[in-house]
């Protein structure tokens, strides 16, 4: 350690400003910290493999004549329509990569602050509980958005570029809105999911395990209840099945489960709402036992 007061204390001449987006430094720091974790960059880059494959698919679908020798009978599977975009946004691989990335870079968002008692450092500053939650949520939104909204919009642009006309866009003018709103829905859901679990423990490793466990167990619960009751409603237990059902509604596709889509939407929305209430209760500047 250097000698104290080596440089002397000087008053700071600047002006403290009230930011419009107080949460932004928290989000930026969370994103930077996620990228500092080992294996995160590799996993993050790997998450874009499906997007690359889908872009190649769009290219081939526009050049079927050129690729006849290797794409015989692939006309149906390479049809680029709203279902194509829906299939991208509901890929198991995408969901798993979101879980992986969040287990690595999102599990400690709140858990670490609890463990290292950093919450009081935030709230000793002009930061409200909402700013704090929004700041942490921004990190999850950023990564989920990069894996869903950005590639899906880019795929749509690629489709327009390769087809050389706006015919596709005019045929499905609502598609861009479907992509945006479903991606937003995914962002909100995964944000609530990750932050809720992160606020339930002080140990980021437990949270990482919980992220996978809750997701997988919900699907196992669907399997078990389906076997017992033989009811399509058992899909309401599964996070994946609910997301798929809602996606079908957003992209005007055939529903994978035989029950109204809004039930899935309701289940996931209630989960998000409850998560927010729990997170708000857990995040405090000081623990008060009354």
């Amino acid at each position, binding site marked *: *350690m*250097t*000698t*104290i*007061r*080596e*440089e*002397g*204390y*000087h*008053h*700071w001449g*600047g002006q*403290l*400003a*009230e*930011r419009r987006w*107080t949460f932004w*430094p*928290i989000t930026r*720091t969370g994103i930077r*910290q996620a990228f*500092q*974790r080992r294996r995160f960059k590799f996993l993050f880059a790997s998450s874009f493999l499906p997007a690359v494959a889908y872009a190649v698919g769009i290219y081939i679908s526009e050049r079927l004549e050129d690729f006849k020798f290797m794409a015989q009978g692939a006309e149906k599977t390479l049809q680029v329509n709203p279902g194509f975009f829906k299939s991208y946004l509901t890929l198991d691989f995408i969901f798993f990569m979101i879980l992986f990335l969040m287990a690595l870079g999102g599990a*400690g968002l709140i858990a*670490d*602050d609890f463990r*290292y*008692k*950093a919450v*009081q*450092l*935030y*709230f*000793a*500053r*002009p*930061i*409200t509980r909402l700013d704090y939650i929004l700041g942490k949520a921004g990190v999850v939104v950023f990564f989920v958005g990069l894996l869903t909204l950005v590639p899906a919009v880019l795929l749509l642009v690629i489709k327009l570029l390769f087809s050389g006309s706006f015919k596709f866009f005019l045929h499905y003018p609502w598609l861009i809105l479907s992509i945006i709103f479903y991606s937003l829905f995914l962002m909100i859901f995964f944000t609530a999911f990750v932050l809720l679990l992160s606020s339930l423990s002080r140990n980021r490793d437990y949270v990482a395990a919980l992220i996978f466990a809750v997701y997988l167990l919900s699907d196992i619960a669907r399997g078990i209840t389906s076997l017992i009751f033989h009811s399509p409603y058992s899909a309401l237990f599964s996070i994946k099945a609910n997301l798929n059902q809602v996606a079908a509604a957003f992209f005007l596709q055939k529903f994978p489960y035989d029950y109204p889509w809004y039930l899935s939407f309701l289940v996931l929305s209630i989960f998000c709402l409850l998560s927010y209430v729990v997170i708000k209760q857990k995040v*405090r*500047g*000081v623990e*008060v*036992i*009354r």
Partner: protein
Amino acid sequence: MSIELKNIHFSYGKVKALNGISFTLKEGATGLLGPNGAGKTTLLKILLGFLKPDEGEARVLGYDLKTEKKLIRQLVGYMPEDECFIPGMDAVSFTAYMGELSGMPRQEAMKRAHEVLFYVGLGESRYRLVDTYSAGMKQRLKLAQALVHDPKLLFLDEPTSNLDPAGRQEILELIGEIATSKNISGLICSHILADIESICDQVVIINKGEIAAVGRIEDLRMINYRLYELKIKGEIDNFKKELKAAGCRVEETEDRILKVYTPSDFDHLEIFRTAARNRLQVRQFVRSQSSLEDLLAKVVGVD
């Protein structure tokens, strides 16, 4: 006026933590003292807005704690007692981040973080991960993050814990300098009375959620009691009893010196009269300089 409290009440359920706390503090360094569970930390947390008082009014730096909490937090620096940091960050990024959260522009915060880290003696290790810091270094880092946005008022909770004697002395000098020549007031909560005595000119003593004493240390010593040290020959049990009955507190040290704390209006000749009644010889009688420890023991009523 840096802090003004009027009739502050706070309870944890049925347990009353603060019961009608009222005081006004001027600029400068103020010590916040009291035995464990007296309500010191609760008071600090109320002043920071972490806890909402059940009753009462509080103003910090002239701003109302209920309606202008954000403004207060911009102008206040807090150094918590707990070891707290954000893992995976180096000290300079951490300190700059804290500055930014206080409302500093990003580049200014980074520049300022370097300055304060040098100031607290972490200049050379400012690029090290905070996770790898020793307990003493973390203590300095906590002070740096409290100073980064150049606050007008510092709340320091046990600022010298985990420090070796040399480090403790340095931190004390630094806090003293900030409070005296840099126009930054400080409310320092510490159980090390010598620390408070060396840097604070005023003190607030809390006991069982109530104010036991408040004011300048020198004045409190004068107001509350006088201390005399006596050497007595003879059987002193009855002598002690009579002095206690007269409102004095009597302690006997290992080397058989009697410390007699008398009320401020007590006639010291009464000590001689009591000795004479008990047929005792007073072989030494010295008016002693009382320590803060004595003051605390007197006003709080603990040994």
